[in-house]
């Protein structure tokens, strides 16, 4: 009896999984299908996006779509909904359509060699955006356009040295998801920048998983175990926003009693910066559409492009936030 039901359960689970995969595959190829390319002078760019998991990503998508329109590039857009298999099938369909250039933000770092080799054999150049791939063969893609996370950490650290370095500062670090490249690199860059300043001390460092509730819960605990904390470095805005809630609940004033640096500059973060609750934000710019279109044109024209292009990024103080907030796109 039990065996039989267990078997039924298993079959049902399998069937469910299979239909789910089938469904999304169809969806992505339908989305990317229609309108071939490459025949005339217009450049056709096939772009496989990760998904729409955050405000940052949505702004990234919007920037690429707008920039393609302005640059007169025919954009074939596909949304992988955070699944690598969707992204691979989208790239395959780009190859079949013979687009002029393929760009994508890899969902994960590994497992791209086979499909990228197919693109290479079809003589379609590939540009990586935002995230890189982990492959021994770097001839599989022409360039990687994206943020330098170490540099972001460094910018945060340099501001800390400049503004906090004169008196003893006890910093709580809210790390991103353990093992994620931005978390590792932003920690490294910050640590390097503050290494020569004895007044700056990271007294507690924990992961808040890049989420608001994570940032809040970690900050609550840190405020209890390290009452001396008077500064926070959060690897993204969301964790910083969570920390603000915890700091307020502890009866302290965020931005004054406890100063805060975050990375990203999404809308809610910029609002908090303008309100004086955050002190400094290092931008992680999703608006790389124009740079991508430039690169695509150069690659198709056969020009040499550098193998690593860093997104144009800036930093914001509270005064700058007040100024730019009305015209921020995300």
């Amino acid at each position, binding site marked *: 009896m039990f065996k039989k*039901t267990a078997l*039924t*359960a298993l079959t*049902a*689970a399998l069937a*469910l999984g299979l239909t*789910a995969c089938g469904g999304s595959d169809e969806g992505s190829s339908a989305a990317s299908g229609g309108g071939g390319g490459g025949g005339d002078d217009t450049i056709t760019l096939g772009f496989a996006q990760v*998904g*729409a*998991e*955050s*405000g940052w*990503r*949505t702004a990234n998508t919007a920037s690429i779509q707008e920039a393609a329109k302005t640059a007169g590039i025919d954009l074939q857009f596909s949304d992988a909904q955070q699944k690598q298999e969707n992204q691979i099938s989208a790239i395959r369909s780009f190859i079949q359509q013979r687009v002029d250039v393929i760009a994508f933000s890899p969902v994960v770092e590994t497992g791209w060699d086979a499909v990228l080799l197919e693109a290479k054999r079809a003589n379609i150049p590939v540009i990586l955006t935002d995230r890189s791939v982990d492959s021994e063969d770097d001839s599989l893609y022409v360039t990687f356009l994206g943020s330098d996370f170490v540099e972001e950490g460094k910018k945060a650290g340099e501001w800390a040295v400049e503004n906090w370095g004169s008196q003893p500062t006890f910093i709580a670090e809210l*790390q991103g998801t*353990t*093992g994620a490249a931005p978390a590792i690199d932003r920690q490294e860059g910050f640590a390097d920048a503050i290494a020569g300043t004895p007044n700056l001390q990271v007294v*507690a*460092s*924990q*992961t808040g*998983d890049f*989420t*608001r*509730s994570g940032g*809040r*819960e*970690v900050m*609550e*605990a*840190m405020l*209890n*175990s390290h*009452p001396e904390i008077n500064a926070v470095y959060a690897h993204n805005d*969301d964790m910083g*926003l*969570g920390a603000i*809630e915890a700091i307020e*609940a*502890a*009866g302290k004033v965020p931005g004054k009693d406890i100063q805060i640096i975050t990375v990203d500059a999404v809308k*809610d973060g910029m609002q908090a910066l303008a309100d004086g609750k955050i002190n400094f934000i290092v931008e992680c710019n999703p608006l790389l559409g124009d740079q991508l279109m430039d690169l695509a044109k150069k690659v198709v024209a056969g020009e040499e492009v550098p193998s690593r292009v860093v997104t144009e990024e800036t930093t914001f103080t509270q005064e700058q936030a007040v100024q730019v907030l009305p015209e921020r796109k995300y």
Partner: protein
Amino acid sequence: MNRLTRSPLLWPLLALAALLLFNLVVNPGFFAVRIQDGHLFGSLVDVLKNAAPTLLIAIGMTLVIASRGIDLSVGAVVAIAGAIACNSLVSAPDPTSAGAAVVAISTALGVALLLGAWNGLLVSVLGIQPIIATLVLMTAGRGIAMLITDGQIITVDNDTYGWLGGGYLFGIPAQVVVAGLILLAVALLTRRTALGMLLEAVGINPEAARLAGVRSRSIVWTVYVFAALAAAVAGLMISAQVTAADANRAGLFIELDAILAVVIGGTSLAGGRYSLTGTVVGALILQTLTTTVYTVGIPPDMTTLFKALVVIVVFLLQAPRLRAVLARRRRPAPPPLPSGGLPEEAAAVLTGGPVLADDEHTPAPTAGGTTGSGRGALR
């Protein structure tokens, strides 16, 4: 006998005490609770407050597990509840008013009621295995939440709504008050009336319970509806804590935490006998563990390993005791019992005497004493 009835909770309680003691040694200020701006403030308060959402879900899960089921969809319901409430708030004519918050919360709870009814329908009427039936909503639910929020994090600004996550009532965090009241209501409803016993009877042997006149179908249906409602309240708390709805991450894997809390508390996944007190202890252990990681400063890359080790130790501590209890139960009744729990008591009460409702079941002359440890009392 008395000692025996208390024993299932002994080890979880000791584990909780050990964890708290460990925290006290590492951080002497851990037990300090002070009044800050008119409310309680301190590590212990944080533990209680942050345990509240998991506890609420675990209470619902306890009842579902007692009915021999499982509900994997609670995490998705958490995400949906937060998404609906925040979406309703931002589209309200006056997003900061108390009225908008009431509408948002009621809408979210109403939808949760429907989701729970859906789960209950699949399990109790259509007879689909609970793990599969709720898996449907687990996978689809987060997608629904994403649809509602458009994949964005929706930030709201409403003090009434925010109160649910960060407010206080007589200095006690609102989350603790709400979770405590719901716990009390469930305890009274299932332990002071026959409902708890009927639920256990259904969990031990649904067919026997039905033959004995228990309306198994509606009882099973009800527990799934309640589990979804509890998850929705937890979802509102989680969203209100940060005054935002994050459909991607809110309540991710919380169903596993809830099941873990139930199991640490000594409720068997085989259904039947359950312990609400055990679930409370289980939820507190899990939260204390998380807070310990943060206060003690265990490196993030070792966090999951540390948690797993503590949980394994708790289970190992429970295991010999469990074996001893099982051995004692087996000895007087050589043929294997169809399921654990307290079949004799339930069957006896249901049929008005020591008559067997299930023909596979063999009488266990002395077992009635060892297992009949007590409805009525909160275990």
